[in-house]
């Protein structure tokens, strides 16, 4: 059956951008030769430079025009095609079924020209197979409509009761400056390290009481020049302020003008201060959600959210969409729209108490003891004992709190898994996201009839440690049945 072929071209305005790009591309290609030809010591006639510039502009204009002329895209029924190339011609055709998502980007330069870069994500590739630069907003909407018209019923959003309940008109959400500030505050990863380093440096004189040598100069009995405590405090404050400023500026550029608004298929995100990006999250198409919150984030009422949508770059691991730390109400709205997830009653999985003391013993106390033994020739006993006791207390407390933090919910359509006491991670996934299930048992676990369950998703592996072996086998079989179904 022959379908009507609709062919489109990029916007005429894009010729300007293409010209500039071609010109820049040529300069980049021949810059070493340019450096030699135009070096000040070389005498040359005065007309050479203007002629060279004119030639460069003319050639790049011809090249840009040829590229523009040869680039076409369009539809033929449910097929989308792109034909391009001046010397080497290439043609790409993809079916609407295999297009998973359509999203646009707009750099500062493109915003000035009122143009967009449109990208299509297809299943089976880790990147975007289709990239169309220099099309206007109307053309973007035309492609989106074609995608909606031809996508397979399986890709159409599933109308569930939860989704119906969410159909009330939702207002567009914009992040306020205070939200960006909160987002920046919890993203400030350097803060802890910087403070720790500065604290250690500030206390060198105090540590040296137990040291045979002066750490600052490496000389015994050297005259020490120790800065007063308030100078160190000021330095710590300055480093904190600097790292916070860097993170805030980065957040502002990446997520400035952040906006979420409802669309026909779910939620439409747009963000970026200079380079504007838009992306659509389809209703009930999310397979994995990861929510992360630290103590500070919980106090500030924000949390980080990572999402992976159905069919998105199937063949690649770790391909999740990371959003900034958002206010809890925004996160709830995103989650409830894109995933059939509600408030569930989390239960404690039957993780054996031996998990926490064995973790403390093998992961922390053994390495700490070995390090302490190694340090004996260089450190005083008092110092080693103090570090060892502090480390042991921390290891025991950390392992115990980690053991206490595990919670989960096994539902008919999804699994919720919570772990971590300092950084709380809530992971929600639908059964189709499960790729493998592994069941493992160490000699110790075998003696106590325990096992560890590893659930491998598209994005990462969840580990449920030290559960009864029989329980692990039943859950594994249930997951396999649900995944196969």
């Amino acid at each position, binding site marked *: 059956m022959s379908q009507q072929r609709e062919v489109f071209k990029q916007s005429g305005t894009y010729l300007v951008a293409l010209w500039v790009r071609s010109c820049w591309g040529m300069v980049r290609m021949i810059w070493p030769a340019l450096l030699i030809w135009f070096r000040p010591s070389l005498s040359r006639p005065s007309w050479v430079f203007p002629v060279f510039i004119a030639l460069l502009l003319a050639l790049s204009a011809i090249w840009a025009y040829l590229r523009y002329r040869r680039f076409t895209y369009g539809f033929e029924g449910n097929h989308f095609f792109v034909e391009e190339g001046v010397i080497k011609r290439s043609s790409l055709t993809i079916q609407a079924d295999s297009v998973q998502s359509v999203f646009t980007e707009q750099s500062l330069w493109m915003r000035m020209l009122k143009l967009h870069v449109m990208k299509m994500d297809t299943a089976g590739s880790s990147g975007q197979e289709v990239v169309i630069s220099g099309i206007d907003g109307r053309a973007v909407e035309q492609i989106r409509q074609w995608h909606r018209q031809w996508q397979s019923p399986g890709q159409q959003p599933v109308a569930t009761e939860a989704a119906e309940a969410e159909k009330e008109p939702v207002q567009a959400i914009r992040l306020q400056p205070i939200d960006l500030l909160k987002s920046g505050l919890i993203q400030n990863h350097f803060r802890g390290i910087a403070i720790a380093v500065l604290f250690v440096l500030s206390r060198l004189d105090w540590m040296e009481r137990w040291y045979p040598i002066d750490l600052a100069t490496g000389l015994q009995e050297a005259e020490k020049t120790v800065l007063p405590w308030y100078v160190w405090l000021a330095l710590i404050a300055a480093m904190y302020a600097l790292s916070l400023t860097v993170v805030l500026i980065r957040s502002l550029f990446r997520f400035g003008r952040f906006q979420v608004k409802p669309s026909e298929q779910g939620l439409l995100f747009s963000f970026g201060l200079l380079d504007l990006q838009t992306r659509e999250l389809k209703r009930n198409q999310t397979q994995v959600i990861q929510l992360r919150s630290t103590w500070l984030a919980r106090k500030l009422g924000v949390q980080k959210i990572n999402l992976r949508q159905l069919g998105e770059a199937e063949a690649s691991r770790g391909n999740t969409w990371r959003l900034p730390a958002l206010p809890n109400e925004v996160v709830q709205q995103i989650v409830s729209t894109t995933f059939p997830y509600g408030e569930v009653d989390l239960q404690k999985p039957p993780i054996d108490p031996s998990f926490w003391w064995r973790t403390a013993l093998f992961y922390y106390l053994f390495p700490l003891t070995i390090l302490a033994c190694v340090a004996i020739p260089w450190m005083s006993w008092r110092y080693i004992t103090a570090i060892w006791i502090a480390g042991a207390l921390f290891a025991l407390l950390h392992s115990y709190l980690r053991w206490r933090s595990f919670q989960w919910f096994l539902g008919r359509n999804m699994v919720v898994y919570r772990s971590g006491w300092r950084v709380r991670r809530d992971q929600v996934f639908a059964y189709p996201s499960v790729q493998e*299930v592994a069941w493992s048992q160490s000699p110790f676990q075998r003696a106590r009839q325990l096992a560890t369950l590893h659930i491998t998703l598209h994005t990462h592996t969840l580990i449920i440690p030290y559960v009864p072996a029989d329980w692990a086998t039943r859950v594994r079989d249930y997951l*396999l049945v649900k995944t196969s179904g």
Partner: protein
Amino acid sequence: MDLFEEIDTQALPQVDALQFVPMHRDKRALVRIHAALIWLLITLGALTLAAFKGWLFNGLFWLIAGVAVVVGSVVTIVYESWAVRCEGYAVRAADVHYRSGIWFKSVMSMPIARLQHCAIQQGPIEKLFDLSTLVFFSAASDSGDIRLSGIHIEEAQRIQAFVLRQIGRDEPAT
């Protein structure tokens, strides 16, 4: 149906116990050859080092190197042969399982519905014994998630054909 209804994990039925098929008996010979080749390479490396350092006529060097190579190769060969005994696989209508480990036991299970493609690999030594490695790929990994190494080539082809039929592809993925 209540989406948020919780499943009672204690009441979950257990699927029939898995009947694992052991690896082909020739795999033991294969791993012994592999181990011997690795130790041969280590020996050649040690000899090259000795030639450069001038230890070739040093009796102590020959004693230490000889004992290390003999003990190392015997331990490796015995360990690898033992590990092969603990390996096994099970292919059911909807999933594939692979068991391994002497002290640290593990069973990896992959639903066939999640399979992206499966490939048969055969190295020169495997070719000598008509053995092959059947690799199952899911979307979670690029390098293969379950590797059934040391199964007969015909058995591998049968499993591959079955698995591809199950996921609705008659031809092996390229």
